[in-house]
């Protein structure tokens, strides 16, 4: 009976699904296709997590990222004991720092007598969430501990600053620099690419030659030259914007190419001609008819442009030409890992690179997913 009912229902459900597709908007179709792309969905979730960290860096960090103390330099990541007497109650041992009499290297011995419990939503450094909500609770922390015996999840750098907290703030800088820079590139790319594709002729040739020239110049030496010219006495914010502008100077070319390609192929579509014949103005044709049909491609190209920007910023800062301390970004953190000897002694300095790689991978997966979803013919 059940089987019969299923057979009877089958054509009904199929036509329902077809009906659904027939009336679905372009965005719904895209969303359905995107959902099928498991890697892309995974990448998107990872990115959401990254941007949550960027937004609430102070909440995820448990220490002041600038708080240095020579007494605890280059501490190894602490191991967390998850269970105490068979109960879930994570704790750590306090560390005692001494100097090795032979090598003069600082060594840290866990003091097994003291147990420092890790509390979730514990009170710690006061801060203002999102810039206006005063708070003092952090995701987790060791409550009421003295300096020197607090938590060091990822160890400390040469100046004794907590790497975990620094990484949280670095995520904020590096992930937003990608967005700001891609925003600038997008404006340049859409305007110049659009002009190039819509008007064609001499303007098109000139813009295309400029793009070709820019793309054939090795970017890093050029960026280095421009970044080195940023005055030393500029504030962190000024340098931040100078670097985003320098990076987007080259970044717009790829976006312009995509936009131009779509403009050229769309110009010959019937609906554009129809709009022209009806007497729509140029502006209306572009923004009302053409832009909606290729905006998904622009989103895809934009997503794929962000990882390149993140890598550029990281590279420049790594060289010491991008953001400079006291600014904290992934590149600035990795600068400490430049010296191979230091790296062998304290390999945890390389941890921020995991964040770079994961973020770039996630952006690539998401971008690929959007691109495939946006173009059913690919």
């Amino acid at each position, binding site marked *: 009976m059940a089987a019969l009912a299923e057979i009877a229902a089958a054509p009904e459900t199929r036509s329902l699904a077809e009906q659904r597709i027939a009336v679905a908007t372009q965005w719904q179709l895209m969303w359905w296709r995107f959902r099928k792309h498991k890697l892309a969905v995974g990448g998107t979730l990872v990115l959401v997590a990254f941007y949550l960290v960027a937004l609430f860096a102070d909440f995820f960090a448990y220490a002041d990222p600038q708080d240095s103390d020579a007494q605890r330099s280059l501490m190894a990541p602490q191991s967390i004991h998850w269970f105490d007497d068979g109960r879930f109650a994570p704790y750590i041992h306090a560390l005692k720092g001494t100097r090795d009499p032979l090598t003069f290297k600082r060594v840290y011995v866990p003091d097994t007598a003291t147990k420092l419990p890790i509390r979730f939503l514990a009170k710690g450094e006061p801060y203002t969430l999102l810039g206006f909500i005063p708070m003092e609770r952090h995701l987790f922390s060791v409550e009421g501990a003295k300096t020197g015996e607090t938590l060091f999840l990822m160890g400390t750098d040469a100046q004794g600053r907590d790497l975990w907290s620094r990484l949280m703030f670095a995520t904020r800088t590096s992930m937003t620099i990608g967005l700001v820079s891609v925003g600038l590139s997008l404006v340049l790319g859409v305007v110049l690419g659009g002009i190039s594709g819509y008007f064609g002729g001499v303007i098109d040739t000139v813009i295309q030659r400029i793009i070709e020239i820019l793309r*054939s110049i*090795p970017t890093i*030496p*050029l960026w280095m*030259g421009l970044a*080195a010219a940023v*005055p030393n006495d500029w504030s962190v914010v000024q340098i931040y914007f100078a670097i985003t502008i320098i990076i987007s100077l080259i970044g717009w070319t790829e976006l312009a190419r995509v936009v131009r390609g779509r403009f050229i192929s769309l110009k010959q579509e019937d609906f554009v001609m129809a709009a022209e014949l009806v007497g729509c103005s140029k502006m209306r044709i572009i923004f009302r008819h053409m832009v909606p049909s290729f905006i998904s491609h622009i989103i895809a190209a934009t997503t794929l442009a962000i990882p390149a920007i993140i890598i550029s910023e990281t590279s420049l800062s790594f060289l010491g030409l991008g953001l400079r301390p006291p600014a904290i970004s992934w590149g600035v953190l990795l600068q400490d890992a430049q010296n191979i000897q230091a790296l062998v002694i304290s*390999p945890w300095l*390389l941890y921020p690179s995991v964040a770079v790689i994961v973020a*770039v991978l996630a952006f690539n997966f998401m971008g690929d997913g959007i691109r495939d979803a946006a173009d059913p013919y690919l």
Partner: protein
Amino acid sequence: MIAYVVRRMLLAVLTVWAISVLSFIIIHLPPGDYVTSYIASMSASGSAVSEGEATALREQLGLDKPITVQYAKWMGLILQGNFGMAMEWGRPVSDVIGDRLALTMVISVAAVLFTWALALPIGIYSAVYKYSFLDYVFTFVGFIGLAIPGFLLALIVMYVGFAYFGANVGGLFSPDFAEAPWSVAKAWDLAKHLPIPAIVLGVAGTAQLIRIMRSNLLDELRKPYVMTARARGLPEFRVVLRYPVRVALNPFISTIGYLLPYIVSGSIIVSLVLSLPTVGPLLLKALVAQDMFLAGTIVLLLGVMTVVGTFISDLLLMWVDPRIRLGKD
């Protein structure tokens, strides 16, 4: 065909000009000029430069003239092969750069060759055995390769080499050869040190090229002529290699146009990490010390070399693709 060559050549010349302007801008961006930094470096070493000497020096160098005149002068000097003085080194720029520029090119070319040698067979394999286990492996490795910035990969390679093999994998020469004049033994020493930087530099490009090759070949393999060849009983490897691969190769070669700037660019940072004697570390030092003549010249020469490389790849493309050779679009 000639029209194509001429067009490409004109574009190359135009690009070189644009690069020269950009390099000039780089030279002039920092506040102050050559003389200011010269005075600063002189007073740092204890000798003072008087006001009169400074103006005389400015006049002699043409720094008091408008910027366009200065640019023309700079270009004039460069065309005569005079790149100015490297301030920090107290020697002509061409002296300081010489060998290092050649080594930069050696490394970049090695990286391009490595990229091709790896991307071509893997790309073909991935397309022919689409969705096979190895195809997935290559896709995955490719994604990771794309996600790791060159300098990070270099750091990881250095770390692994140092921590687990106790070997310093950096440098291009063994200590015995570093200062020695060129000889066969030194060249062999260089060849032995070349693979690691070439691989580090080539990984990201390889990942990209594999994807391009795979999708190009997949497009070709769907076409009817492939089925015809198969129906006629051609052995499978001939069906694939003789026709579709040749067609798919086209965009592959044209990518060298942007592969080269990309690799030269990467070589700068990777050289710093692996302490390779290329222009990379020199450029960074020059920029930090505001030795702008040296920095500007390096940017200019790197740009010119990339343009020349791109031009050569255009000629190569013409040689491979009859559609371009015969002037049909």
